[in-house]
């Protein structure tokens, strides 16, 4: 009985240790994610994603359900490159960040605020983002993003 209790305690402590160690790592990942966006560095951004990552955009529409579009990582990066190419004064900020850590998968939620000038107009885009992060031997990789996006 004592052995069982000891094992449970050990496993519990290991899980707590995993949480304590993993949470700061997702903070570092998110910092790199924000830097890559701000620097408009598609290569650096790509290195943060798993090859099979999916990005699900939920585009808010007036008077209707959000339009859901699922992109591969490649399609997502292509759109960012096109946006960076045509826009001016693009700025990104991340706020309201929360982290939660599991054994193999971590989750990060944050608000991504974008502002840029496109074809003479200033556009604001707010996204409530839920990011899934996989723990790999080589470090943390983003495996999925779901973003509820509104434009104004």
């Amino acid at each position, binding site marked *: 009985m004592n052995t069982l209790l000891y094992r449970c305690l050990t496993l519990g402590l290991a899980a707590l240790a995993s949480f304590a160690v993993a949470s700061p790592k997702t903070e570092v990942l998110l910092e790199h994610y924000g830097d890559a966006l701000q620097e408009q560095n598609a290569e650096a951004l790509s290195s943060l994603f798993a090859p099979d990552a999916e990005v*699900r955009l939920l*585009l808010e529409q007036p008077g209707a359900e959000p339009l*859901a*579009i699922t992109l591969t990582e490649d399609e997502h990066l292509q*759109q960012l490159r*096109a*946006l960076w190419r045509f826009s001016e004064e693009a700025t990104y900020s991340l706020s309201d960040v929360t982290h939660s850590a599991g054994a193999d998968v971590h989750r990060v939620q944050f608000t991504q605020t974008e502002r840029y000038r*496109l074809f003479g107009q200033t*556009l604001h885009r707010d996204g409530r983002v839920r990011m899934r992060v996989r723990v790999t031997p080589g470090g943390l990789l983003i495996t999925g993003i779901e973003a509820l996006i*509104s434009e104004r």
Partner: protein
Amino acid sequence: MGARGLVLKLPTVQLTMQLVVRHDRFSDAFMQKSRRFFADQYDRAMRSVRAAEDDILFLYPPPDKDRQRYVEMMNESRLFLIEAGVYDKDMMRWMKKARCKVSPERGECSSEVPW
């Protein structure tokens, strides 16, 4: 644009280029070199494709709710063109194998239809 509209990314046509030579007039080494040359052009061609794609804003695949409908529409068009004799059946059989190897979850992959 963006939330108000998008450019639909949907493959509808596949272009191929083939160089056909009389094998009895060229050495094996020349033909092997030619194959290597064309294979080596892949990265260059993809750079052109990516550069062209980077000129298109809001180039998205169909919305999730419409995706299956578009796949079915393309399947129907392909079957029509095969049955009308426009597409070569052997080629289409190989292309189905290629599609199902890359994306085995496609509905057509569990179908008995050979192309």
